[in-house]
């Protein structure tokens, strides 16, 4: 298939998943604050900083807002068009990508992207503030509906595989960020406003608020699935084991990496014994390591360092997917030395407006 079509499918899917994850973070934070209302300082800006840290957007946020409050953080993550990762921006970009390949996707998929886009145009900050639960549920359901429609109306060929790769790479990245930030938030001393700048801690210890850990699980829709495995033993070890290493839960890191690997290998024909390109090699390596890693291995490395490395490796895989399938093919680019390859440029994904005016050329 045309590289452009593959790339648009990839980014359409990736932005949709990103929007869903942002909705999840916000939703859980609101619930968490309700739970904590009588227990601790719900006004503590640290609870809101965490959300900005998850999206690695501190600098941009600080340019736009004075303080971390429910209102500013929600505005930034849901509505702000200058934030390319806000829910509104993500769905706008998903729609732009879908629109540019409208003849390649099913009309039902287009309808669903379009519906969500128009729904978001009609939502006001007031509405989200009054009833955050309904709003975030709407976003999550819209994303689930889109995936269901895609599975049932779009041929499961190469294009579908690109959709899967994007979805699971994005999801893996989001889970890793969420765990990383929450882990630091939940340390006994909540003193530093810059948790990520701290030296990585080796072991979590001390008393941990069960409610907060439950919130982490909830934001991954994982609480019920977790209980079925670990009953009510909600402790950090089990939670990390579940969210990072479980092979069957669809919002765990291991599951997502496996799913991305399957899709990548289907496209290229790679197998367990033979990889065809660097993207396949890197995802295979990550999957194998996850399969044979224990939670103790992770602790001995330091959780923060482990997750940080994981995120960096995900970026590398994204780069390789870009170079292998979307970028202009030259032998030089396919060098074995990945670090020497071209930098990853596909992050914008969306289609710029420059081309509109020229495309309007008259037709006879």
């Amino acid at each position, binding site marked *: *298939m*045309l*590289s*452009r079509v*593959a790339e648009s499918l990839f980014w359409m899917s990736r932005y949709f998943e990103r929007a869903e994850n942002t909705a999840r973070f916000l939703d859980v934070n609101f619930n968490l604050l309700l739970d904590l209302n009588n227990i601790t300082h719900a006004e503590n800006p640290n609870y809101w900083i965490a959300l900005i840290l998850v999206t690695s957007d501190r600098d941009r946020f600080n340019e736009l807002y004075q303080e971390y409050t429910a209102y500013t953080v929600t505005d930034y993550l849901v509505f702000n068009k200058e934030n390319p990762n806000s829910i509104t921006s993500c769905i706008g970009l998903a729609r732009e990508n879908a*629109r*540019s390949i*409208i*003849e390649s996707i099913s*009309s039902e998929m287009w309808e669903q992207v379009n519906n969500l886009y128009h729904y978001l145009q009609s939502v006001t900050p007031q509405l989200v503030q009054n009833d955050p639960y309904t709003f975030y549920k709407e976003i999550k359901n819209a994303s689930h509906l889109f995936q269901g429609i895609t599975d049932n109306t779009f041929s499961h060929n*190469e294009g579908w595989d690109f959709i899967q790769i994007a979805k699971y790479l994005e999801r893996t990245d989001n889970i890793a960020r969420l765990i990383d930030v929450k882990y630091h938030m939940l340390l006994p001393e909540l003193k530093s406003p810059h948790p990520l700048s701290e030296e990585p801690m080796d072991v979590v210890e001390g008393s941990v608020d069960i409610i907060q850990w439950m919130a982490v699980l909830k934001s991954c829709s994982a609480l019920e699935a977790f209980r079925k495995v670990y009953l009510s033993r909600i402790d950090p070890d089990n939670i990390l084991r579940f969210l990072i290493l479980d092979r069957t839960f669809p919002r765990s890191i291991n599951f997502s990496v496996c799913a991305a690997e399957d899709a990548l290998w289907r*496209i290229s024909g790679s197998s367990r014994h033979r990889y065809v390109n660097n993207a396949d090699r890197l995802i295979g390596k990550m999957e194998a390591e996850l399969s044979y890693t224990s939670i103790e291995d992770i602790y001995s490395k330091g959780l923060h360092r482990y997750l940080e490395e994981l995120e960096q490796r995900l970026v590398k895989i994204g780069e390789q997917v870009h170079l292998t*399938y*979307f970028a*202009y*093919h030259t032998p030089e680019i396919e060098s074995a030395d990945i670090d020497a390859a071209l930098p990853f440029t596909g992050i914008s994904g969306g289609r710029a407006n*420059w*081309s*509109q005016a*020229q*495309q*309007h*050329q*008259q*037709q*006879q």
Partner: protein
Amino acid sequence: MSRFFERYEADPASFFDEVISKEGVPRAHYDKLLHRFAQFTTEDIRARRQIVNIFFRNQGITFTVYGVEEGIERIFPFDLIPRVVPAHEWQTIEKGLAQRVTALNEFLKDIYHTQKILKDKVVPADLVLGSKHFCREFVGVNPPQGIYIHVTGSDIIRDGSGNYLVLEDNLRTPSGVSYMLQNRQAMKRAFPVLFEKYKIRPIENYPQELLRTLQEISPVSRKEPNVVVLTPGIYNSAYFEHSFLARQMGVELTEGKDLVVNNNKVYTRTTRGLERVDVIYRRVDDAYLDPLVFRPDSKLGVAGLINAYRKGNVALANAIGTGVVDDKVIYSFVPDIIKYYLGEDPILENVPTWLPSKPAHMKYILENLGSLVVKAANESGGYGMLVGPESTIAEQEKFAELIVANPRNYIAQPTISLSRHPSFFNDTELYGCHIDLRPYVLYGKTITIVPGGLTRVALKKGSLVVNSSQGGGSKDTWVVDE
């Protein structure tokens, strides 16, 4: 006669009516149609209208209107009464178009090589060489098989006595053929019985004929030459058509950034690497094709494409620089061009045309602006024109200034009362609407014209402008064997 046609006022004294003759009786080739419509009630018509609307909406058949807010897409208005063209009339059109296109291709070959016709002063050299669309970069280049105009859409009208005249030629990227095909599909769904009663010549093979034509001009001989459609992109008004034709032909729909030139060969960028391209059916204007040769700011083109083309490694349909014939000033010389190259009289006449660049004509034009149609030489889509009888004095004065300032850029023609065809208003009442006809001529190893074309209808009462961007609609066109 049907209840609809009983109330229909043809006004054959003022206009040529396609259905009702001067004597006030239906023309023979419409008999069966009128008989069938006589059986319909208003509810029947509404039900059929519903079928057609659903069909168009589901197919996503829309066009984009410029100048209005972004993203305004409209369904192209469609009239339920088909136009019937008897075979003997079609034969004239077919022969006339084949003659015209052959001569125009010779003309293009000539002006981009020896320029004999200019030296013989049949067409003034300054008009050709100074034309906005004359492409100096293209002089001396030999397109595959010597063919320049692989797809032509000439607009044909009928005057007050029913003669078929060519109103203008579109030799660059004529659009609308997807509507022709979809109109037929819609009619088959809505009026299956009528199709049994007429021997209607099929048009459904157009995409295959187009693909065959495109493969025939492939510069590289291989079993299945790789053809792609090149579109400016999703914001273009005809994007639906580009996508439709690509799907119908089973070829890739590409944008400029999908193509890459390496070593003077053109490739598509795919997830499996580069794939060689042999023929590009491009719906992008010359000016945007290659930023290295034409507009350097073009983001729609492919750097190096023109060099690949010059080297004969890829074919472009249509060739570059064909727009010089679309220039309405050059249009006025087409009858001379036909005589010059073919030694024949034109089978299809032109509309009489005055050129402001000739002093005598200029005087006439300025004195008669109220009754003439003035057109800019290089606009299309109904933009940049003055319809004298419908204009205000202020508009006429504005155009007079424009013409005097730049006589080369304008032409004037008498206001032809285009033939009229009964068309529905609100599915209850028939009204005579002005129509034209755009057949599509394919030129590969042979010339192929699918029988029919797009009949455009000026659905505003009394309006003469049939362009879709100006509120026009269309109807199905049946070439029938008697």
